């Protein structure tokens, strides 16, 4: 190979190398955006009332790492009404020591159990605008049986069964955590429209080994929570997916404060399984 040929080869290689970099950062200017209050309030029977009220930001809003609490929306009046009683949630930052869940409004009152119990949320912002929400506690749908199967490679899968009430429209959230609640292995939501029988089932892949710990959860959720979760997840996916069709997040809270968020009861069956 002559020196000329070698240079030509180098040139071609460099062109190919450069040409393979198909992603680049660009400068764009997004349309203006007004911050909205964001509510997250999950009512779990037997646990205290907690609510997280934050704010959304313009996508390119400056990030101040020295003050992570700047996202929190304080100075609002938060009340939850249940059984005709108003429970005032105090504006105080709290972290659940077991689950590390953060809240900035809470009460020491305990969320009562009871299928069909109705809860109402009233928030008044400092400017007088309001946020409202309503939820009804659903029945817990227990995971009534499970089978563990192994494949030829010694990997395990778990099939979990539950009774699906065909007389009503139901929505479910299924989660599998691996080892601890920090490690999510499976998380999806579905409605029962496609179930043909009353025997509902969820399964994992052959992904686990003997001795692994799985935390399985079956959450019986309201349609409003289903809509919130599905639209929120699709918003995340659509940003990264050229085939995706974005949309607006469907919230379960409304009001003059133009909020986004979810106010819902959590009717959950959760089991820990150590594979043999």
């Amino acid at each position, binding site marked *: 190979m002559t020196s000329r040929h070698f240079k030509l080869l180098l040139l071609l290689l460099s062109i190919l190398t450069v040409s393979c970099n198909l992603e680049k950062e660009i400068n764009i200017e997004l349309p203006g955006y007004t911050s909205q209050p964001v509510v997250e309030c999950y009512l779990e029977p037997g646990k205290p009332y907690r609510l997280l009220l934050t704010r959304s930001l313009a996508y390119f809003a400056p990030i101040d790492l020295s003050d992570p609490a700047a996202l929190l929306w304080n100075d609002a009046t938060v009340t939850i009404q249940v059984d005709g009683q108003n429970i005032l949630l105090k504006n105080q930052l709290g972290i659940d020591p077991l689950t590390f869940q953060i809240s900035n409004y809470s009460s020491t009152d305990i969320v009562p159990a009871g299928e069909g119990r109705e809860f109402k949320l009233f928030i008044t912002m400092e400017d007088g605008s309001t946020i409202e929400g309503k939820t009804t506690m659903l029945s817990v749908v227990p995971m009534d049986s499970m089978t563990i199967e192994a494949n030829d490679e010694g990997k395990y899968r778990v099939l979990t069964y539950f009774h699906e009430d065909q007389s009503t429209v139901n929505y479910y959230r299924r989660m599998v955590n691996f080892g601890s609640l920090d490690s999510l292995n499976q998380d999806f939501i579905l409605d029962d429209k496609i179930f043909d029988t009353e025997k509902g089932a969820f399964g994992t892949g052959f992904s686990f080994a003997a001795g692994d710990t799985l935390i399985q959860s079956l959450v019986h959720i309201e349609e409003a929570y289903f809509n919130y979760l599905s639209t929120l997840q699709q918003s*995340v996916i659509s940003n990264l997916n050229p085939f995706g069709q974005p949309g607006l997040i469907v919230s379960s809270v409304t009001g003059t404060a133009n909020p986004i968020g979810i106010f819902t009861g*959590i009717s959950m069956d959760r089991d820990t399984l150590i594979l043999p």
Partner: protein
Amino acid sequence: MLNFLTRSIPLVGLMLIFSIQLSGQRTVTGTIRDASDGETLIGATVRLAGSDRGTFTNSYGFYSLTLESDTGQIVISYVGYQDQVIKIGPGVSNPVIIDLSSGKLLEEVVVKSNSFREQLGSTQMGVQELTMREAKLIPVVFGEVDIIKTLQLKPGINSGSEGNSGLFVRGGSSDQNLFILDEAIVYNPNHLFGFFSTFNSDAIKDVKIYKGGFPAQYGGRLSSVIDVKLNDGNNQKISGTGGIGLISSRLTLEAPLVKNKSSIILSGRRTYADLITRAVNKSNEGNKEFNPIPDYYFYDLNAKVNYTLSDKDKLFISGYFGQDRFGFDNENFQFNFDWGNVTSTARWNRVITPQLFINTTFTFSDYKYQISNELTGFSFNLQSRIRDMNLKSDFTYAPSNDHHIQMGAEVTRHLFTVGRLKAGSDDGEISFSAGQDLDAWEAGAYIQDEWTINDRSALSMGMRLSGFLQKKKVYGALEPRLAYNYRVTEDLSVKANYARMVQYLHLVANSSISLPTDIWYPSTAGVRPQTSDQVGVGWQYLLGSQFLLSNEYYYKYLGNQIDFKNFADLFANDQLEQEFTFGNGYAYGTEVYLEKKEGRLTGWVGYTLAWVRRGEFKDIMDGRFFAPRYDRRHDISIVGIYELTHRLTVTAAWVYGSGDLSWLPVGRLPFQDIPGGQTQPVVPVYGDRNNLRQPAYHRLDLGLVIEFSPKWGESDLTISVYNAYNRRNPYFLYLDAETKTNENLGIEEVVGIKAKQVSLFPVLPSFTYNFKF
């Protein structure tokens, strides 16, 4: 519907009376063919010698021309062929079959044609023709000849995204195009998510795209008609064509079954990436570190047989079968995703009288996708399908040289399987299912008269009556078509047209990119047909004898447009209609087109200036109007084909387009979720649709064709470079958030936000070896 039909009959009758033939004239009729292989030529000009008056061969190569007396001369011309003059004397009887010789046989003769002059005199607007020579020479991605991608270089036609075979014509969406292959509808004209089209150019004789001024024979789609005719097959000798490319190889064989009477053509194409990936997978068997590569390939098969039963009767049977196959197997599951079209056509041409020609066709179309997965003890199967059976008769009646009447009727049976899901355990204890089966009838009748009023004026009047029946719901519509041409001077004509179109089938597609899982859905009691009304005006000017400059202005109103509600659930949904939302739209713009068809340098320059809007959807942006993603303001294409020598041709195509629109988030929110769920520090918040225009798109493609003359026939090596200057064109944009864990709070924090652009194709050289014998 009966009342509706009854009301329309007087109108159709009036048009018939309008066109009564004068007596005492002689009509010459027959077909025009290529002398080398017997292929009939579509759109060849047949005119009286010394006059501009004449006619064209129809889609089946048939012509009918009336002489003033028993004798005379007719001139036949066709682009790329030698003109031929035929003396018609008392001894010449019908049919007069004329074989034209290709101009290529005459080394130094400049092959001339009057095609530009004929365009000047025609009422037809908004039509683009594509020659197979153009399609084969103009470079496209990976060197794969693709008529749809070449059509995208014509003004007024957008692609959905880079490399995509979707067509967005004059503001219409990609489901508003009628793809016809030998009279049969092709419901999904794409392979591999739209990167390749289903049409194998080796088997194609003729391609026309109508963007406006639709002839009355066409109906069922709002925005364009892409009419593809397959070759009939060489009825003179055995011949073949083929090619070996980087992505696929193809082979076409043609042969006479009975010389001059019957022939057959078989054509196939297949990609072969799977052969390589299978070999790689096999060589890594037992390697636990290796993740097997999924299997993917597609193929197309075309077949056609024709038989000349008599001087007056000819029979054709053709079929297309194409499939995409994606498979991924391992010891735990077998995943398969297959999709494809099947079409078949049986056609009978009959010359009833010298003035009256009838074509009767039965077609069958089938598009299906199927996703299946077999897991240990469980199975999953999802499919959607549309099947059509269509019977139609088209008459061509030429009572005089001044009237060219076409009329016909058709009926179609549609069968739909929409999102049919079956899943469950092998023992049947657990079972899931969803989906619905629907059916419908569609019918149409039309009449159209091309009336040459005098040497300067021509008027085309057409009326189509269409109807649709789904369960007990009936829809009907009158679809008038009007076009007028006025020849101001020998070199300048002005034109105007109006067309109403109605579309009874709708594509359920939630993306601007063609996906095999897109579902066709009929009009029902809750889903009204889509409509469009398009008006166009324009002029054409002949610059010298070699250049034709055209300029058209159009406005199109789109009614009953279908879009989808926020995050519509289109997957295995029994209540699909509940996800639809209905609105309207409009599009307007202008197209400038300068074309050169003859000489060593051929090609065109096209420019489009356009606006598109959709709105009045109850569930989208409170009914406000918005621009769809393909609302592209400026579009330029410059295409050149230059014959350096008779063995060497260079080609170049440069395109420029204003960037498409993206729908990007405007805000973000943090999401904590319940314990055990997934905390997300950045959830995008979307505002109004399509809120950001992407950077402009431009690209240069270059090609070099080196022709050889081996003893056994012809061959060439085509070298092409796609995106020659390696422009990073946007495929899609996204916003990227960089996060890190806050050790004190145990939460994910956002530390940086960036906008990213992803491009698809860098500079891509490719080589294809083609042969013909």
